[in-house]
């Protein structure tokens, strides 16, 4: 659209036609105050704070509803305007309880800020304030009407942003009140968007309320560790007896791929970190009992055992199982440890998507993977399988927002009537398990129609329509594997600018795959037999594929696997393995809790979780992001450090494993995870000056260098990464296809309120689920 010239406070402003005046002012640094205006939500004009003077208009105008027009002359500050705004604040404060000293929002409240700006310190009223009792709407949402200023942000974000519509407005006039649309409680996704979008303390969260003052927390910007979407979250962290306590998660700074979105997990389900069952001491099995021990004892024992088995039975007698939640650095280090230190390719992880097939299909194609940002911006999206609302809440948000704000066309093909069909331009129900047949049909195999059901014309029309789309983003769930993915990519090649996105379930599922937690694949999906540059760097590594996870169990049962090293995984529970198969093996487990796998271990090492370490993770769409350490829980160690300590205890030259401090100067010391929620400025400065960050063998940055150098697709801008940006990795230089066993892919049984082991130890998720379970049978008492 053409640009429009306007004048704001004497400044000439050029802005695209159709821009709202409030945004035009913002673009030149002039802030027009508002409560009800919120970018990307519908306009209200209700709070009257953004009143400005537009020449030739008799009354003051609301900048949030006025669209710029050529030649418009605007004044945003004058005695009349200040008085109008002051008048609004006075009116709001009239009925406001002014309980700022105990209000959660105190110190980060927009009403406080407005009062500070416009000065309405003296009340003109002596009548009693209108009062209503506080209400609890769900385990995580409380509402305090007297604090509410009725900006309707909560109603809109629930309705427009979430497509849930759990909130509405009741009554009229001064009795108006925000209320659940379902009598006295919320029936919703419990995302908490309403709480974070509230400019005051009217909506508060069950997990955070009355716990702290905002300025008593450290605010640490990191990445959520639950599903595979990789939302940025800012953790509010306090000191506690246990070392630290996370009390809040939000993304109010709108950083990262998720803007201000977070689901219930990112916002509240960090409480597993402070669960009472958290392990805080190493445990060694003595006389059949797991007994507390020192770290030194534990490492010495593991080192001795692993060395002895490697000497006697060779590396193939040791199995290693990695995690979907640990960082890329830890995963890379773990497989390097297995291959280089133990001399074993017996390494695997819990697979939730067929990334090897996906990588092979996209080999040699640049810009073929879709990022989370692409999903928000693409003119059209095709979604096959999965239910993002339940399993990928950010992806669902990106799709909904794209449809709502950019009029993107969404096509959904699913075996269930998933919620996203409500945004879809086309929705096709297929029989369960027919996702692959649909991919084949798209690729031109009309015979596949037989398994799809419905009319041939309908399916052909859909395929033809999809072929006319440009820059289509094709998102698919783990229902598609092997040849299905190849077929889909073949179809996509005919669509100009098409990009693909494979959905996997955990926070670093993609990273675990990319980093080579496979018995037959090195980092970057390179076959172990053609080790190439890894051979050169690492020296001799075994070239025969190792054992997969179920094969390790078989091998242990046969008495061949003498040792099992499990880092942040729970294979006994996930794969339903008989725990007794490992009764003769020496089992080492690094975990936060005494899981089904940890209880059979000979040594259990208490591990830090993703909120307690630094490093990087790759989300399901291949966006690489930095995680930052929020704090430490006393008695735990990061997996990175533990792996290095075990290598050291085995007598291995640690410098061969982690190339730290190699001949460079880093006189500013080791970088610590920034504690401010901002970019790690120290690291950025070091990087920009060509200095090294890494001074310690426990510093994951030391191995990020090697990852960037050796792993195809990871050669992204380190500066951008350290600055807190997401960087899209790619499969262009990945290895060729290596046949995988599709049955090894076991999707997580997670949903909106379930999150594997982490979810099991989250009080918040439990309270929400119990509350949901109760509702159907419980009669709501009549008034």
């Amino acid at each position: 659209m053409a640009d429009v010239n306007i004048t704001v406070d004497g400044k000439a402003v050029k802005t695209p036609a159709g821009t709202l005046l409030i945004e035009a002012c913002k673009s030149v640094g002039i802030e027009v105050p508002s409560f009800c205006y919120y970018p990307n939500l519908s306009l209200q004009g209700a709070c009257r704070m953004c009143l400005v003077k537009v020449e030739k208009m008799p009354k003051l105008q609301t900048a949030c509803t006025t669209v710029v027009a050529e030649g418009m002359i605007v004044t945003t500050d004058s005695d009349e305007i200040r008085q109008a705004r002051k008048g609004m604040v006075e009116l709001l404060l009239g009925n406001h309880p002014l309980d700022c000293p105990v209000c959660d929002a105190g110190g980060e409240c927009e009403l406080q800020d407005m009062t500070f700006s416009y000065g309405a310190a003296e009340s003109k009223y002596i009548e009693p304030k209108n009062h209503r009792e506080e209400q609890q709407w769900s385990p995580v949402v409380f509402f305090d009407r007297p604090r509410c200023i009725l900006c309707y942000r909560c109603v809109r974000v629930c309705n427009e942003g979430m497509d849930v519509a759990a909130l509405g407005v009741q009554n009229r006039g001064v009795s108006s009140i925000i209320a659940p649309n379902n009598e006295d409680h919320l029936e919703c996704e419990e995302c908490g968007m309403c709480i974070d979008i509230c400019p005051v303390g009217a909506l508060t969260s069950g997990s955070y309320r009355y716990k702290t003052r905002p300025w008593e927390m450290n605010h640490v910007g990191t990445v959520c560790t639950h599903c595979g979407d990789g939302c940025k979250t800012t953790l509010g962290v306090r000191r506690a007896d246990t070392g630290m306590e996370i009390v809040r998660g939000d993304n109010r700074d709108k950083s990262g791929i998720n803007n201000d979105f977070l689901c219930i997990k990112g916002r509240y389900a960090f409480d597993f970190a402070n669960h009472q069952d958290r392990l805080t001491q190493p445990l060694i099995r003595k006389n059949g009992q797991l007994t507390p021990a020192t770290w030194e004892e534990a490492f010495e024992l593991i080192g001795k055992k692993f060395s002895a088995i490697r000497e006697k039975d060779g590396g193939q007698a040791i199995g290693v199982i990695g995690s979907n939640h640990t960082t890329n650095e830890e995963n890379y280090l773990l497989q390097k440890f297995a291959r280089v230190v133990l001399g074993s390719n017996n390494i695997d992880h819990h697979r939730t998507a067929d990334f090897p097939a996906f990588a092979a299909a996209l080999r040699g194609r640049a810009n073929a993977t879709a990022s989370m940002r692409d999903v928000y911006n693409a003119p059209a999206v095709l979604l096959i399988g999965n239910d993002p609302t339940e399993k990928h809440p950010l992806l669902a948000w990106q799709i909904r927002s794209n449809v709502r704000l950019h009029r993107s066309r969404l096509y959904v093909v699913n075996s269930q009537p998933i919620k996203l069909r409500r945004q879809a331009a086309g929705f096709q129900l297929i029989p369960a398990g027919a996702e692959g047949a649909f991919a084949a049909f798209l690729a031109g195999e009309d015979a596949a129609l037989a398994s799809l059901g419905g009319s041939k014309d309908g399916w052909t029309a859909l395929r033809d329509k999809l072929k006319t789309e440009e820059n289509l983003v094709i998102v698919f769930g783990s229902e598609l594997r092997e040849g299905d993915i190849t077929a889909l990519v073949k179809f996509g090649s005919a669509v100009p600018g098409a990009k693909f996105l494979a959905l996997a379930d955990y926070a670093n599922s993609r990273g675990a795959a990319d980093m080579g937690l496979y018995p037959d694949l090195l980092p970057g999906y390179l076959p172990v037999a053609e080790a190439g540059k890894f051979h050169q760097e690492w020296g001799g590594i075994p070239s025969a594929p190792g054992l997969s996870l179920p094969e390790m169990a078989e091998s242990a049962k046969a008495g061949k696997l003498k040792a099992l090293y499990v880092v942040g995984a729970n294979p006994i529970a996930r794969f339903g393995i008989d725990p007794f198969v490992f009764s003769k093996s020496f089992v080492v487990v690094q975990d936060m809790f005494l899981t089904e796998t940890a209880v059979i271990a000979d040594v259990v090492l208490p591990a830090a979780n993703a909120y307690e370490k630094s490093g990087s993770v790759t989300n399901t769409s291949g966006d690489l992001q930095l995680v930052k350490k929020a704090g430490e829980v006393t008695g735990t160690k990061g997996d990175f450090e533990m792996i290095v300590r075990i290598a050291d205890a085995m007598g291995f030259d640690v410098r061969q494993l982690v190339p730290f401090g190699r001949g460079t100067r880093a006189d500013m010391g080791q970088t610590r995870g920034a504690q401010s929620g901002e970019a790690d400025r120290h690291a950025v400065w070091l990087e920009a000056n060509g200095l090294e960050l890494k001074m310690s063998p426990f510093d994951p940055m030391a191995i990020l260098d090697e990852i960037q150098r050796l792993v195809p697709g990871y050669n992204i801008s380190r500066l951008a990464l350290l600055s807190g940006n997401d960087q899209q990795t790619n499969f262009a230089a990945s290895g060729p296809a290596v046949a995988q066993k599709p049955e090894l892919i076991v999707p997580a049984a997670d949903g909106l309120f379930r999150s594997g082991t982490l979810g099991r130890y989250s009080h918040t998720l439990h309270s929400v689920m119990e509350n949901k379970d109760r509702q159907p049978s419980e009669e709501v008492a009549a008034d």
Partner: protein
Amino acid sequence: MADLVSHSDEVKIVSRRFGQGAANLDRYLELDGYKAVQKALSMQPDDIINLVKNSGLRGRGGAGFSTGMKWSFVPKTAPKPKYVLCNGDESEPGTCKDRLIFEHDPHSVIEGVMIAALAVGSQAGYIYIRGEYRYLSNIMQKAIADAYARGFIGKNIFGSGRDLEIYWHGGAGAYEVGEESALMESLEGKRGIPRIRPPFPAVVGLWGGPTVINNAETLASVPHILLGGAEWYAGLGTPKNGGTRLFCLSGNLNKPGVYELPMGYNLKKMIEEVGGGIANGRKLKAVVPGGSSTPVLLPNEIDVAMDFDSVAKAGSMLGSGGVVVLDDTTCMVKFALRTIKFYQHESCGWCIPCREGTDWLKKTLTRFHHGAGQKKDIDNIQYLAENMLGRTFCPLGDAAAMPTIAFVKKFRQEFEDHLDGKPCPYEKNVAEPALA
């Protein structure tokens, strides 16, 4: 049912069928009913619009916007259906004219809607009637059903080949819905809160289609204009204020009632002659000239022509024609309180200044009238009202603020007489509780 009144100065046009049983369709036809719409069917849409424009007809709901002009803003072609709405949500205290039209001459409203629909090219009209007018809804619904039965509305009206549906819709009891965009929200089944404008209803209105919305009296005037001609109608009033209107005289008068008088009729004469003067031989204290939202006039300000422009010049508004006359036994503080109570009750609550402002005005005035007022309260009341004026989302805030400011400015002494714990000078016993 209200008793009808009459006076020799009246010019009966809209009210000419009052009391003649015109709610009956046959009777209505005897009284020239549905002749105007048949004439309109033979005219070009633009000619109808120009005729109405030239007649000087201005909106009888209160704002006084030129009706023909409003119709001309509707685009000739539109992707969405166009609508004509009759605003019968008559709720302004002091105004009671539309109810007489619905009661005595419902077909004239239907005919007005039809002519407007022909003028703007619409095929659907809605007649929205205030929720509290339940007894009138029955009359209106029957009138619509009768018109359908004769084929006057529906498919192929009067054999013209044109289709036109007309629907009745009842309100749920909100003054706010008298505001045109809030009425559309209500009609669409939503909360009755106003919409952001622009876009204006003529472009984006009901269900997103271009919409003409007119007051019931405005639409009921249209058939007469079509039959009588623009010049005749314009000549009845003053320049730019064509025709006649229904004035609702109420308060301390000897002969209160609804009178149809030419636009520009003198207010003083209206009170003294048409209304029969102040009742019980009392003296005139104040006049609210156009419904409760218009600023009060003092006895020395009432020598004014009752047309939109003259009353505006006198510092008030012609509004919706509700002339409320107060004698010297009236406590102006109590009257201000009664007025603000209405607006506090009816504020939709959408925007801050109206929602909070009317509530604080009510609280303060309640205490003040009870005798617990402080001197600074008088300034505060004015300050509060001035903070609302011109800053609310819709005109309801202004409707509450304007009269309040006038009460304080013009009767400040009376407010001061309530200070220092003195009981209201006009009442021995104050019935209002101190804190409502």
